[in-house]
């Protein structure tokens, strides 16, 4: 398979940009492991199972988080379904407006939401959003973290799991954990964090270089 024109997904760009610990090798072990997964997926059509309750909730409640954004900012945004691509990367930003790219993340609970700081947000999603800016030609991105209710059947599943574990220690009252998944009592304003990210051509150039190395590495792989 020819990987010389392979388009990397924006969501995976951070994996390409992990610094290598070896001077002679531009690709880190993390990057190589990520590239091996792509190689197996593309050549042998096998995809690693990576689904989790966190990503499931994130996907399911994305529209609810957009409603939260509306409540707080007064602006209505709709989900973008158009996939953008150039000769290097591809991706589907959550929201594209005339001024900026917006990406919506939904936290699992109060604890994970409280952990979100500007540094963490940048560490986790800077390259992804930079990729979207590159694809759309926009120079500003907003990364929005929201905390919205967990879907009811997921709450039931969680409580069921807690029940099965807690009954071993004689604790049958799982209802007391229900508020951990419901956040209507917390003011909407407190449940939304927004971080602004800016376009940076120097970083884009660095991404291009890493993509060239990565494509070459993909072309050299075998089982």
């Amino acid at each position, binding site marked *: 398979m020819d990987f010389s024109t392979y388009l990397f997904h924006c969501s995976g760009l951070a994996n390409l940009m992990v610094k290598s610990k070896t001077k002679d090798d531009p690709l880190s072990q993390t990057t190589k492991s990520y590239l091996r997964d792509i190689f197996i997926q593309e050549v042998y059509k096998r995809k690693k199972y990576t689904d989790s309750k966190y*990503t*499931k*909730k994130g*996907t*399911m*409640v*994305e*529209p*609810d988080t*957009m*409603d939260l954004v509306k409540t707080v900012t007064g602006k*209505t945004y*709709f*989900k973008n*379904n158009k996939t953008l691509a150039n000769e290097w990367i591809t991706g589907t930003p959550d929201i594209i407006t005339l001024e900026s790219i917006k990406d919506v993340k939904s936290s699992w609970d109060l604890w994970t939401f409280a952990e979100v700081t500007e540094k963490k947000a940048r560490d986790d999603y800077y390259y992804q959003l930079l990729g979207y800016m590159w694809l759309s030609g926009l120079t500003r991105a907003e990364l929005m973290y929201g905390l919205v209710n967990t*879907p009811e*059947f997921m709450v039931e599943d969680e409580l*069921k799991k807690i*029940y*099965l574990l807690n009954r071993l220690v004689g604790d049958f009252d799982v209802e007391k954990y229900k508020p951990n998944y419901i956040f209507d009592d917390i003011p909407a304003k407190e449940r939304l964090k927004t971080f602004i990210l800016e376009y940076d051509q120097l970083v884009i150039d660095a991404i291009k270089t890493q993509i060239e190395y990565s494509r070459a590495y993909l072309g050299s792989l075998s089982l």
Partner: protein
Amino acid sequence: MTNSIVEYMGQEAVSKNIQETLGKKTPQFIASVTSLVNANEVLRNAEKKSVMLACLTAAALDLPINQNLGFAYIIPYKNKKGEIVAQFQMGWKGFVQLAMRSGQFETINVSDVRSGEIGDESRNRLTGEIVFTWEKDEKKRAILPVIGFVAYMRLINGFKKMLYMTSQELDKHGNRYSQSMKKGYGLWKDDFDAMASKTVIKLLLSKYAPMTVEMQRATLADQAVVGDNDYDHEYVDNETPTAGEIANHKEQKRILIAIKEAKTLKELEECREAVGDDGVLSAVFSRKFDQLAQEKI
């Protein structure tokens, strides 16, 4: 007959398990399992262990597995591997039985609701209670269309609660939780009334009733291929929509609301891209566009 359910239950380890669970009731249990399996060819070909564990669950709850009685059902299903397995299903009478046995209920019942027996004005928004005007003439009532099902319970301590669901809501519920209903067969298709009755009573009990150990066990095992313990139950007929499907549905609803709430053509235009080529949304968008254009807003 080789590999029969009788032979399976005769194996030392299996027989010991049954004896430990049922004690003196073992011979009666073996007789009813044998008669159940002999009467159902598909169940005869089902995996023996799943049949035995499903029946054992019913027996442990002290519910008869005679399908005609409606307390509990043992239903054959094809799992994802293509094997036929037996699934344990509670009937609505089974839930009522367990509730009454707890000694905490003064009354518990379920009924269908016919056209004309409920009106919007009879709902109490605060208590959630509905006043029904039951048709007294049974002959007249029998020909009225069923519009929903209601379950009601009153505890000895005075707590009372009802749960009403329309036939459409129940249909949606069945479609969401039963893979076989989506494909046009299974209990939801064959006996909608029984499944609807069970759904309202199960939801009422799981939300508001004191949960005895028996009730918890019944709720967990219901609609499952019973495993060796509560952790191992496998829900073969349940299929929730994917996370993506749920998100798409919610997003469509958001777009629909935004179209309906648009007060000017400019506001409406902001929804145009999101409408895309969705037929329903496009139609609603066009109607709203015409309406606002006529009002020249």
